[in-house]
């Protein structure tokens, strides 16, 4: 809940495990406990979804002051609190709000008995297949079982048989025996992405989760159901059986598949990315991300990755792998052969601000006039996906000082055609596949330099090919479509000799004039903050995991707007 929402809301006194605290009236009991670091275990409750109260795991002992007879004055202790009359019936902490002089016991015998009971019930029909279950290691059932369970089963009967390994959509697989019927996935589909294809069929202990007849869980947000599934009932076809969760390194980053910049956690191990999952950010993506963005990491692990710097001298057929020092020296020498007006630079809206800033330095060094980026316009959806398929168009515009991004490309083409432009530096773009540049046109150049993560036709035509790091392999910042400055963090070094583009530019500048005082990405940011007003006063660490509003835009995020409405109505906590 945001702080500004709580202004003007009266505070109530609540006793949690013997200690008195104050909370804004209307705070859910479970959230009040969380705020004072008291964990209430739960399965069905999710702050972004409605609260059906069905798992019963969050049952706690609750008490209120005794009801007074008419005219009777309440008896208060020296701190002004009334005596609490504890109720014999436990209540769910997820859907009930705190009230004045309420007491909550999360450590009482009653509460413990409730948790033990619910844990035992959840496990009687749950398969004990943790060793082959992808959820193991991040499974609420596993965790709460260790913390609140009995450690022993009294169940001597046969477990229920239910459908297993059911393809309920192109990316999702269902194991009904593992399902604990929390209904989070059903609610997510119905409430958050307006695609109510999931539901329960049958009754009682035989209840099964299923897709409705002739339907599929195929929407572009389907994989979020895997994230919110507290057990291993819903698994991702993409991730299943690929890596045990506890072996993965988790890196906070952002998705770079469109201008939204959904906050993510990259799961990787030993230089291989295994998955991306959404990370909560109430200003960007709530708790969700689209399937397209989530799956758009496979190229990082691709065989087609460029791993070494290569050069091809004029007259030579094939590229030769060379050490970085040689490639940089060669590139610098080549570039210095041209007049400033003969060089053009095409950078990318996929680069970080830091990479763009070092590009700006290189451009200044060479006094280049023809500078642009490649635009990528696509379709927005009514949820998170933005029409801008570049993650950092705003950063490119700001850092490179572009008046009209994409507006210079035609002039560059014309210049190459007429011979006025003789050298072209292409950073993190594949012009031939992604724009209307052709091999024929590029063949007119005397010198072409390309950085890119993957082998591609533009690189084929280049004199210098440099392996540029992809998003999971770099530190830096980007500005999303709503103007928020957000951080990427390096999960691991890119394959082979890959370098981040800011490093490549730094080394080129170094080779051209012998010194620039830049060593690390922090130095880049510091210098950028000194030169570009919008970044004034900021440092990389100040950007933090949740980002900062940097540029004012009037744009809103459709999904967030709807969530705000639901928060206002009290349907969800948010």
């Amino acid at each position, binding site marked *: 809940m945001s702080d500004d929402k709580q202004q003007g809301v009266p505070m109530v006194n609540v006793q949690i495990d013997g200690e008195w605290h104050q909370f804004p009236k209307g705070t859910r009991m479970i959230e009040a406990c969380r705020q004072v670091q008291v964990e209430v275990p739960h399965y069905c409750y999710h702050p972004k979804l409605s*609260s*059906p*109260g*069905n*798992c*019963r*795991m969050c*049952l706690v002992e609750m008490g209120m002051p005794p009801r007074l007879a008419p005219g009777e004055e309440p008896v208060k202790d020296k701190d002004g609190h009334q005596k609490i009359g504890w109720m*014999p*019936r*436990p209540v*769910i902490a997820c*859907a*009930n709000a705190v009230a004045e002089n309420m007491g909550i016991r999360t450590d009482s015998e009653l509460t413990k*008995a*409730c948790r033990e*009971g*619910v844990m*035992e*019930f*959840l496990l*009687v*029909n749950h398969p004990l297949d943790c060793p082959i279950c992808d959820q193991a290691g991040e499974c609420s059932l596993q965790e709460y079982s260790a913390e609140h369970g009995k450690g022993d089963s*009294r*169940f*001597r*009967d*046969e477990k*229920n048989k239910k459908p297993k390994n059911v393809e309920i959509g192109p990316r999702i697989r269902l194991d009904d025996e593992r399902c*604990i*019927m929390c209904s989070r996935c059903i609610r997510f589909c119905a409430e958050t992405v307006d695609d109510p294809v999931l*539901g*329960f069929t*049958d*009754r*009682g*202990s*035989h*209840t099964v989760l299923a897709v409705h007849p002739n339907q599929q869980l195929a929407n572009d947000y389907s994989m979020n159901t895997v994230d919110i599934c507290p057990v291993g009932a819903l698994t991702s076809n993409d991730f299943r059986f690929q890596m045990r969760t506890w072996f993965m390194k988790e890196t906070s980053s952002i998705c770079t598949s469109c201008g939204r910049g959904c906050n993510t956690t990259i799961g990787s191990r030993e230089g291989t990315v295994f998955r991306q999952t959404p990370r909560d950010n109430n200003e960007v993506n709530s708790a969700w991300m689209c399937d397209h963005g989530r799956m758009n990491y496979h190229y990082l692990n691709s065989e087609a990755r460029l791993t070494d710097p290569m050069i091809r001298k004029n007259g030579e057929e094939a590229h030769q792998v060379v050490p970085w020092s040689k490639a940089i020296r060669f590139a610098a020498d080549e570039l210095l052969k041209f007049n400033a007006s003969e060089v053009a630079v095409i950078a990318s809206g996929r680069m970080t601000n830091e990479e763009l800033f070092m590009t700006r330095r290189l451009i200044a060094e060479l006094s280049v006039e023809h500078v642009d980026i490649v635009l990528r316009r696509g379709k927005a959806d009514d949820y998170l996906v933005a029409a801008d398929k570049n993650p950092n168009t705003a950063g490119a515009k700001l850092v490179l000082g572009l008046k009209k991004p994409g507006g210079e490309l035609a002039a560059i083409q014309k210049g190459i055609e007429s011979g006025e432009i003789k050298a072209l530096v292409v950073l993190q773009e594949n012009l031939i596949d992604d724009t209307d540049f052709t091999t024929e046109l590029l063949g007119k150049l005397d010198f072409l330099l390309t950085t890119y993560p993957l082998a591609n036709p533009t690189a084929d035509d280049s004199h210098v090919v440099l392996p540029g790091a992809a998003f999971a392999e770099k530190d830096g910042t980007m500005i999303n479509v709503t103007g928020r400055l957000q951080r990427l963090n390096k999960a691991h070094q890119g394959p082979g000799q890959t370098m981040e583009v800011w490093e490549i530019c730094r080394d080129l500048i170094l080779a051209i004039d012998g010194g620039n005082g830049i060593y690390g990405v922090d130095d880049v940011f510091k210098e950028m903050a000194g030169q570009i007003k919008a970044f004034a006063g900021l440092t990389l660490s100040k950007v933090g995991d949740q980002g900062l509003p940097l540029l004012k835009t009037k744009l809103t995020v459709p999904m967030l707007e709807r969530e705000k409405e639901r928060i206002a109505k009290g349907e969800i906590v948010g």
Partner: protein
Amino acid sequence: MAKVKYIAGKEPHAKEHRMIFRNVDREGWDTSLATYQKEGGYKQLAKALKMEPKAVQEEVKAAGLRGRGGAGFPTGVKWGFVPPNNTKPVYLICNADESEPGTFKDRYIIHQDPHQLIEGLIISAYAVGAHLAYIYIREEFPEGAQILETAIEEARKQKFLGKNVCGTGFELEIYVHRGAGAYICGEETGLIESLEGKRPYPRIKPPYFPAAMGLYLCPTIVNNVESLCHVKHIIDMGADAYGKLGTPRNTGTRILCVSGDVKKPGYYEIQVGKVTMGELINDMCGGMKEGRKLKAVIPGGSSSKILRADEKFTLKQGDKDVEIGIEDIPMDFDSLMACGSMAGSGGVIVIDDSRAISWVLNNLNTFYAHESCGQCTPCREGSAWMKKITDRIVSGNASPEDVDTLESVAYNIDGKTICAFGEACSWPTEAMVAKFRDELIGDTDGKNAKRPVSKETQEAAKNLKSLTT
């Protein structure tokens, strides 16, 4: 009122007080509006429409009418829960899902005297300010639904329903909605969900108290068929006269449905608390079957806690505590509650000494495991687990420890679920294990302890082995 002649062999017992069931099994009686009006039908509606709605509510409150569906909550008080500043439409729902095993009173009202229900329903709708009412009738009453449809059509033609009820400007429509066959649809919020076209998953309370947030999140009153019929009689007699029927705090009459091991099972309408369990079983029902002895009684529908024939109960009479036996329990709400059970829906299930309690319990557990909606964990998993255990007790594949497990499972459900089904499914086990522990343990077979498969399966497995060797 003229003396009523009943069909031969179906005459009420002398200790009965026929009010709601006055026309049930009546000679020459049918379900037509003409027949109903010959006996003063819809006169009480006209009378009520001349009163202020609030006055009708007060009359019902003053009469002390307690709900006949199971919980025994005062009907007038329930009506008063509609928020005073409400601006949304108010709905009235007649709960005709009569699904508690052992209960079969509402169906006779619907089948034989539908206009009594409709008149009561219209008066009640007027009292609570509803302009739309639903009769939610269980799927298993197809004929009843047809009878109601016909009766509503007749009433509409006579302007007892529609835009201008009896020319007073009051507007009311009644729709009959048929369920799809689920016990849980009798739970009022489950019923509301079902009426909205969803799975009948009961709602959490708070916040979804029907009187404030019911059907389509509007204030909604849900009343049992019999309760609504009583409203008509309260208007007829006045609260004072009605309140003199029965006993203080347990006013009026109620229909007891007796099933099980008695000579004459059936329905008996009594003044609440004016008949004891002994009178009911021995006099009205003709006593136990030949050569059998009373073993136990489930007094208020299958979910109420069982009473042992040899139990002693303590009741307050005046200021004194009096110890009584099962046959002396007055059949009213408070006495049965004081005896540790409840009057519930009025379904009295009599069990004689020929019945094994494990069989009785297994029968109920099978029902509740089948009917659990499966929404919340303790009931979903617990009801099925209890059934699996009693299955084994019945088939001789249980160990004595299973009885303890059974009891503990029941207590892990009780009080921890979204709706009262948790209590409904755990109380039979709690009470039967507490009161018949030795018998249940005696039914377990030590030799077969902790074997999950039935004797039949074991035999089959043996045969299989002999085939392969």
